[in-house]
């Protein structure tokens, strides 16, 4: 009887140790330099619009995707608040990629390019290229997910890979993103770190 009690205690201990380790790793994994591209916007609102090359089937997903980032960074920042019909800086342009063949063959859905100083500077402009031959077959919800990911790059977030990807759900993970309709707690933690109050 005593050995049974002992065995039960050991089993419970192993379960709790395992759970504790898992949760510690996940929480302790926030805000590493590898989660960021290196630069950031120095503005509280970043406007965006699309040009005439972007097919109409992307207009609503673009608006929905942009909205999901609004007010997420420490509440003070409103990224991509409203579509603007004219070019103002800070500004993000959305275009259909001019090199469809090239990127479609390589399985690329989109590219999110903040600039002008990509890795260490202050962003004042950005470009989101959609590879429509790859993305046209996506449902509106999946188009939105893909665009949320690209807007994440434009904010300065990098891909979440390897160890971090195992323990955290993120729109910046190329696998997780398809099942997500907005930035996760992990994404917002990283965003808040990049854009503190």
């Amino acid at each position, binding site marked *: 009887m005593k050995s049974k009690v002992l065995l039960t205690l050991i089993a419970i201990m192993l379960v709790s140790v395992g759970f504790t380790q898992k949760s510690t790793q996940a929480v302790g994994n926030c805000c590493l330099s590898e989660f960021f591209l290196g630069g950031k916007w120095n503005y509280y609102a970043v406007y965006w619009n699309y040009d005439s090359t972007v097919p109409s089937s992307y207009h609503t997903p673009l608006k929905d995707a942009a909205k999901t980032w609004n007010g997420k960074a420490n509440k003070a920042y409103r990224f991509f608040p409203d579509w603007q019909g004219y070019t103002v800086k800070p500004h993000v342009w959305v275009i259909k990629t001019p090199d469809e063949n090239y990127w479609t063959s390589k399985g690329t*859905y989109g590219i999110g390019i903040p*600039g002008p100083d990509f*890795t260490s500077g202050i962003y004042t402009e950005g470009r989101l290229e959609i590879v429509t031959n790859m993305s046209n077959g996506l449902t509106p919800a999946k188009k939105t997910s893909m665009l949320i990911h690209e807007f994440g790059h434009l904010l300065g977030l990098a891909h979440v890979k390897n160890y*971090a990807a195992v323990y955290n759900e993120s729109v910046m993970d*190329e696998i997780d993103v398809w099942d997500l309709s907005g930035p996760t707690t992990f994404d917002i933690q990283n965003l808040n770190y990049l854009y503190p109050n």
Partner: protein
Amino acid sequence: MKTKKYFINGIILVLSIFGIYFATTSTNIEKSEGVENRNVAMSATYGSIEELKNNSQLVVKGKIIGEARENDRKLSDKTAKEIIYKVKVNKVFVNKTNKLIEKGMEIELVHTTSIILNGQEYDVVEPSIKEISNGNYILFLNEVNLENETFFVPNTPNHLYRLEGKKFQNLIKDVKLNELNEEEL
């Protein structure tokens, strides 16, 4: 009485299995690699070999040989930085192109690593695959036709399988198809 005993033993067994599972899996995964990741392109990941094959025009087993060479390709408004590898084909699994590709032939694999736009360089692949080492691979390829040139590219940079021991291991570690056997093709 006997039922109660079985029930208790069952609970102990289940708890032990879960305990051992959680304790071992949570310690075996390596800590963050801490590598800066400047990849701004979102590429496809596939969940099955069927899907991978369906999205490839050419599937081969081949050996990357010799010295790779760098190439700057002028696109519409940017430059793509490529590394071109020579691949000696050992076996053809799928060929939907109109080219005859056979065992013993050499093909060129064009691997785009970054783009240059307005003087800035942006990665379009993960840091771990900016360079591909020589060795045996299973490659899922597509044909690119640009003006007067035709060449092969990986159908996505997220599925590149290198022979490690007896299995082909994906160079990208956290996708669904981490490894595959030649027989599965």
